[in-house]
Structure formats: structure tokens, C-alpha cells
């Protein structure tokens, strides 16, 4: 599974031979693990986070999504997984190299630095999800059915602020898996730092 970049950039990956492939695989794994955990949240007394169905309500509309939950789940699931994979790709090609250059403590290509970058990207998406996606897209769809979302996801249906924190847990799981699996390291061992040239070579 482990591969060295064929472009002779001197970077190897935990999985895949290029940053793009590694990012796509890491995005798929992270999205699937986080999605499954979200569906299991109710077992820990947390709000169930069914992102495939929530996406489905956007694309198939309501009340069709309520009367055909399987259709909403599958259609929304496709878009949800594509979104997760593309966010992984964006992380691998743009965000991770950028963080390596801007945040000096994260410049080294080490598993710990890569992991922290994944967490930061996950938390960034948590803020976008809670501040924009849920209130602006899901809120208006579910509000007529008695499940408003509230500002910054603080009153989702019968839940209060715990929905916001469960969303934080979801995106932490996603970012942690992304950062652990998309883990570029120097092919020759030792420590290497991100430079503008490194990012260009990796593509």
C-alpha cells in the first residue's frame, strides 16, 4: 500500500503514490468512518447524525424525502461521499501544503504534524457546517416539520447545544482519520519541511 511519489519529489505516502490519490483514499476512509460513527451516535445518547439523509432532503426535497427515506438516504449518501472525498483531495493538494508553509510548527512532514493538520481541517469544516450548511440549508427545510436548526446549530429539533458538540465529534473523527491516513513523509527518512517547491512537485 505504501508508495513513493513517482515524480521523484522525495515524498512517500502511507497509501497511494501521489498526493492526489492519497488524498482521495484518505477522504473516502475518513468520510465512511465518520458517517458510520454518526449513525451510531444515538447508542451513546447523542443526537444521531445521519448526513446521507440530511443531504438527501436537500436534493429530493420534502415531504418526498420523508415518504421515501431509502431514496433520500441513497441519493444524499452519494453526494455526501463525493463531498467528503473532494474535501480530502482539497486537503491533500491545497490545505495541507499551505498549513505547512504558514504554520511553522506544522512545517515538518511527520505523522503528528500531518495529524494536527487533519484535525484543523476537520474543525474548519465543523464551523462551516454548523454556521452555514445546517442553518441556511437544512434549517429552512426541516423548520416546517418542527425541527428548526437555530443559530450555529444550537437548537436542532429537541436538542440544544449538544447537537453542535456532536457535530464537533463527527468532524473530529473525520479530520483525525484524514490526517492519520494522508501522511506524506520524506522517502529517505528523517525530517523534511514543506516548501513551495515540495507542494508543486507532489502534484
Amino acid at each position: 500500500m505504501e508508495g513513493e511519489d513517482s515524480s521523484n519529489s522525495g515524498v512517500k505516502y502511507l497509501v497511494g503514490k501521489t498526493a492526489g490519490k492519497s488524498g482521495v483514499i484518505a477522504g473516502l476512509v475518513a468520510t465512511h468512518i465518520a458517517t458510520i460513527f454518526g449513525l451510531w451516535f444515538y447508542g451513546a445518547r447523542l443526537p444521531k447524525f445521519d448526513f446521507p439523509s440530511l443531504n438527501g432532503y436537500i436534493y429530493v426535497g420534502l415531504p418526498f424525502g420523508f415518504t421515501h427515506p431509502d431514496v433520500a438516504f441513497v441519493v444524499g449518501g452519494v453526494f455526501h461521499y463525493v463531498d467528503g472525498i473532494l474535501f480530502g483531495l482539497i486537503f491533500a493538494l491545497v490545505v495541507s501544503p499551505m498549513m505547512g508553509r504558514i504554520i511553522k510548527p506544522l512545517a515538518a512532514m511527520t505523522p503528528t504534524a500531518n495529524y494536527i493538520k487533519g484535525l484543523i481541517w476537520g474543525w474548519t469544516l465543523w464551523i462551516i457546517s454548523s454556521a452555514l450548511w445546517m442553518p441556511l440549508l437544512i434549517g429552512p427545510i426541516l423548520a416546517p416539520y418542527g425541527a428548526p436548526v437555530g443559530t450555529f446549530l444550537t437548537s436542532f429539533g429537541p436538542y440544544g447545544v449538544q447537537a453542535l458538540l456532536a457535530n464537533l465529534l463527527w468532524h473530529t473523527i473525520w479530520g483525525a482519520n484524514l490526517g492519520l491516513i494522508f501522511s506524506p513523509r520524506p522517502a529517505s527518512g528523517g525530517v523534511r519541511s514543506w516548501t513551495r517547491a515540495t507542494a508543486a512537485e507532489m502534484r
Partner: protein
Amino acid sequence: MAARTMMAAAGLFVLGLILLIAGAVIEPAAPAISQSGESLIALGLTFIAIAVGFFFAWAAPS
């Protein structure tokens, strides 16, 4: 650096466990829910997930 990172991860893990236990104690029997209980459970699991990830990153060969 590695030792300090692991100490911080261990601290996060313990903090997560404490929050998780506190949340589980506060949480009433189903179907009733407690906003504070569920919030502490979510935060506790978040800290535990972060700490476990740190351990995996630390243990990964570089």
C-alpha cells in the same frame, strides 16, 4: 518533544474520560435527555478521539 506530546495526549484522554463519565452520570434514563449530560458525553468522546489519534500518530513509523 515526543514525550511532551504524549503527556498532552494522555492528559486529553483522561480529561475526556472524566467528561464522559460525568455526562453519563448526569444523563437521565431514556427517553428523557439532558442537554448538559449529552454535551459532556460529546465533548468527552471528542477529547478521547483526539488523544487516541495523537497516540496513533506518535506510534506511526516515520
